[in-house]
Each structure stands twice: as C-alpha cells, then as structure tokens.
C-alpha cells in the first residue's frame, strides 16, 4: 500500500514539475526558441527543472543548510523530527545539511572531472584527426590499449598507485574518461577535416590552435554536447561508486556516495534515510539522461 502511494506521488510530482517547467521555459524563452520548448517532451522539461534545482541548491548550499557541513549536532541516528528534519547520521550530524552540501561537493567534483576529461579528450582527438599520420596512430593505439581494460578496474589500479585523495580521484577518472572522449572527438573530427573549408583555412595559413578552435570545434559541437551529458552521468556514477567503496571523497566532506555507506546499517532496520543520497544521485543522472535523450533526438532530426 505504501509503495503504491509512493509511486503515485512520484508520478504526480513528475508531471507537475515537467508541466510547470515547460510552461515557465516557454514563457521566458526568447522568441526563436519558443517552438523548441513547446515541442519538448515532458521527460526533458522535467530533467531540465531537476538539473536547475540541483544547481541552485549547490550554489546556495551555505544559505539553505540549517547547520554546518560537519557539525556534530546531537545523538546519532535520530529519527525524522524538527529541528533535524531528516534525522542525524552515524556521528550525529544533520542529514539534511549533509545532503545539501553533498550536492555542492559531489556534483561539483563530478562536473570538474568531466570538464577536464572533455578538454583533454577533445583537444587530443581533434589534434590527432587534424595532423593524422604517426601522431594519430600513436595516440589512437595508446587509447586502444587503455580502453581494453574495464574502466572501474583501471581506475582502481590507478588509485592504488596514486593514493586515494580528491585530487587523484579527479585526475584518475578524468584520464580514464578522456580516452572515451578522445575516440568520439577523433571520429567526429575526421569527418570534418576532409571538408573544403578546412582546406581553405589551411591555405589561408591558419595555425593548429585556430583551426581546432574556430573551424572544427563549432562544427563538432552537437555530438560533443550530447556526449558531455552522457559522460557526466558516467563520471558522476563512477565517483559515487568509488566514494561508496571508501576510495573517493572522504569524510568529513559531505558526499552522497560515502553517506550511503556510512549509514547503510539503518537500511536493515527498515529506515530509508540512507537511500536519500543514493536517490539524489539517481535522480540527477536520470534527469541528465532525459535531457540528453531529447537533444540527441532533436539533433538526429527524427520525427515520430
């Protein structure tokens, strides 16, 4: 009965948020974008709204959170009651506060990692496609070799070597994911470098950097943006998984993955509190996926 109720409430929220955000977007959008937002599916508008909420929460974390990030408030594992609306955790820290700060830490670190992986992967990929020859061969074979090892296993290996800290976590995940981005960027760029306008730009004497930035990147943007969304999901899940395993972001920094692990014992007593951070992770990845799905659908020009 409770489950059914939860499902109904969830669906109602989904439709409410989706419809509301679509209406708002249509109202606020500049004239030329109005049709885009009018035709967007409910899943996509829901996704956009959720992403927006996460961004706002992570930016305003210190204002929204009722207590300090790692402030020990009272007894451990307190039930859901004011002033601790979601109870307290293993050490007696306010759960709601840590959830809010977790948005800032987990999402922020995942975003930074994805951005790093993207810059490195895209620049190298386009560079390889542009120069071709031995450079392309060398880089591509190295990437092939690195990609032959499953991502999680390779990250675990690298974390053993470099030690587990936030910095090495970011660098390791970025390195592993940059190989995947490289693949995509290279194959997209290969289709572009044979175009006449690239030839013309070369004859004009444009340098390598200018070619990448001004000629190729703008034309490779659409698939790369979609890939950025997907990549963010993978990175986000990988970081959460590693933090969950105790190898990523470490306490006292509030982080959703490690919060699940720290409080997991509660689940066996039927308390859903430890599931909240896990749900927060799932909700964001689902939202990003919905938006990416919509973008891919739009880019491919498919009509139902």
């Amino acid at each position, binding site marked *: 009965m409770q489950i059914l109720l939860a499902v109904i409430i969830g669906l109602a929220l989904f439709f409410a948020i989706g419809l509301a955000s679509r209406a708002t977007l249509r109202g606020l959008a500049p004239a030329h974008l109005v049709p885009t937002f009018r035709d967007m599916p409910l*899943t996509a508008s829901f996704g956009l709204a959720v992403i927006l909420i996460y961004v706002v929460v992570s930016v305003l974390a210190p204002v929204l959170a009722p207590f300090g990030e790692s402030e020990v408030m009272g007894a451990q594992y307190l039930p859901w009651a004011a002033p601790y609306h979601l109870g307290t955790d293993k050490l007696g820290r306010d759960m709601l506060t840590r959830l809010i700060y977790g948005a800032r830490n987990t999402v922020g670190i995942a975003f930074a990692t994805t951005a790093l992986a993207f810059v490195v992967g895209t620049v190298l990929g386009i560079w390889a496609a542009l120069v071709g020859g031995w450079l392309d061969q060398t880089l591509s074979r190295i990437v092939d*070799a*690195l990609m*032959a*090892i*499953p*991502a*999680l*296993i*390779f990250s*675990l*290996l*690298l*974390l*053993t*070597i*470099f*030690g*587990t800290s936030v910095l090495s976590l970011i660098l390791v995940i970025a390195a592993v994911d940059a190989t995947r981005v490289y693949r995509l960027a290279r194959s997209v760029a290969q289709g572009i470098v044979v175009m006449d306008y690239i030839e013309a730009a070369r004859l004009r004497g444009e340098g390598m950097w200018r070619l990448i930035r001004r000629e190729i990147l703008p034309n490779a943007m659409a698939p790369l943006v979609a890939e950025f969304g997907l990549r963010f*999901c993978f990175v986000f*899940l990988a970081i*959460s*998984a590693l933090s*969950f*395993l*105790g*190898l990523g972001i470490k306490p006292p920094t509030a982080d959703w*993955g490690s919060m*699940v*692990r720290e409080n*997991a014992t509660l*689940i*066996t*007593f*039927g308390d*859903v509190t*430890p*599931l909240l951070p*896990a*749900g927060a*992770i*799932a909700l964001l*990845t*689902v939202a*990003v*996926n*919905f938006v990416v*799905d919509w973008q891919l659908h739009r880019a491919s020009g498919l009509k139902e």
Partner: protein
Amino acid sequence: MNDIWRMIGQRLLFGLLTLFVISVVIFGATELLPGDLARELLGQSATEETLAALRDQLGLNDPAPLRYWNWLTAALQGDFGVSMATKRPIADLVGARLGNTLFLALYAAALSVPISLTLGVLAALWRNSIFDRASNALALTAISIPEFFVAYILVLFLAQSGLFPSMVRITGSTTFGDQLYMSFLPALTLTLVVTAHMMRMTRAAIINLLANPYIEMARLKGMSPLRVVLRHAVPNALAPIINVVALNLAYLITGVVVVEVVFVYPGLGQLMVDAVTNRDIAVVQAIALIFASAYVLLNLIADVLSTISNPRLMHRS
C-alpha cells in the same frame, strides 16, 4: 569449416596480443609514479633501511623490463607473488574468491540474458505501445541508477522482511542450493542493472531489420507477427544481440565490485577494494589482470560467435 578455424585462430592471436598489451599497461602503471614506489607506500617518515628492504622485497632494484618479464612468467604459472598487507601468497587469496565471483556473474547472466531477450523481442513486437514506451523510460532510468541504490532497495524490500539474507557467508559446507539462495539478492541486483540495456539493444537490432523486403514478404505470406520476428528477424539480428550480451556480461565483471561490497560477498571485487585501501599493489595488479583477461575473453567469444552467426561477416575483405 577451414575458414571458421582460420578466423578463430586469427581472433585468438589478436586476443593474445591485446592481453599482452593489457599486462604491459597494468605493470607499467606503477612506473608512472614520479617518485619511488617504496617511499610512496611507506610514507615520508620511513627510514632509509626500511625503504631499502622494501625495494629489495619488491625487486625494485632491477630494471623495469626484467621485472616485467619475471612478473609475467610467474603470473602465467599462477604465481602472483605475496600480498604485502597479509603476507599470504596472492594465489591462495584469489583462488577461492575467483570461483565465488564467477558463480555470481554466471548466476546473474543466467537470470538476465533470457529475461532481457524475451522482453526485447516483445518490445519489438509491440513497438510504440504502452509496454514499449514504459520499458524505454525504465531502461533509461535503470542505466542511470547507481548499483548500490538498486542493491539497498532490494535489501529494504526483500531482506528486511527476512525473505532473503542481506549478507552472503559461503563456507566449505555450503550446499549449491544454499549458495543459490544466499546469492539471490546480489544476482538480482546485477540482473536489474544490465537487463534494461540488453533489452533495448535487442529491440533496436530487431526493429532495424523490420523494414527489409524479406520481412515484408513474410508478412504478406500471412505469417503471424510473432513468427515473423522469431523466424526471420531474430536470426539476422543475432550478431548485434550477441555483441550486446557480451558487453553486458563484461559489465557484470566490473559491476560485481560494488555489489560484492554491499552484500559482503566473499569475491574478488571485495578483495580488490580492500587491496586498494591498503595500497597492496601486487594484489590489485593480479586481480586487474584477471578481470581484464575475462573481459578480453568475453569479447573474443562474442566476436567469434557473431561472425559464425552471420556467414556474410566471414567473407568481408
């Protein structure tokens, strides 16, 4: 027949080459450290004597190619060296756990492959129906959910009421039936994680073929839609389906790491996480090599099977 053997031989050689490259990467990763491995492991406060002793123990005084050769030849004979944290031979640590992990992965595969193929065929059959749309949304959701979330939800609903155990304890006296019962929740978690993707890809592979003239012909003959899909579409869609199944089974291999930790399952993943925490590099290298070999092997099998399933693939120049 000869063609098939030649193809298998070629793929095997290629697989061996890949494995060789992987072993170089796994071994070479330790060479990436800017400083000295011994100092990194013992910390700044280590004395010169302990550093020298550890270097000697790890064989760090030899040149890297020689160390690589020694490591590889020993590993091929099943000798992975000694764990630094527990001082026990790694082969002993890995031995029993490898069986458990394989059991879990096979269990999950036995559940997920039939389910996802059936659902995929049904989704292709009833495309654009409510069932199809719902499964699409569910698949997208399932791909985005962290494994530990699925695992804990299952624990909340199935273990908390005492239906299934939330921890797996396998001893020498555990019977096969008990083991199946105890590992049900971890296997179900893995199944839920991979089913959606396999199902979507099966559906896509079948739908891709439905515009072909021979499908239309079969339809015009008055065949039932189910028979058209099963007799005419599925055999031609086998190659992509096999590939996506292999991809997901390979994913199972890495997916076990998180799931094993949740259910305290005595497998390789758990061992690897412990080893990473202790920075026990020899153990991590050994397990990474095992996981990576399984990954390569699965891809190899998928490649061979999908080529056999479609003779046209064998004669491409």
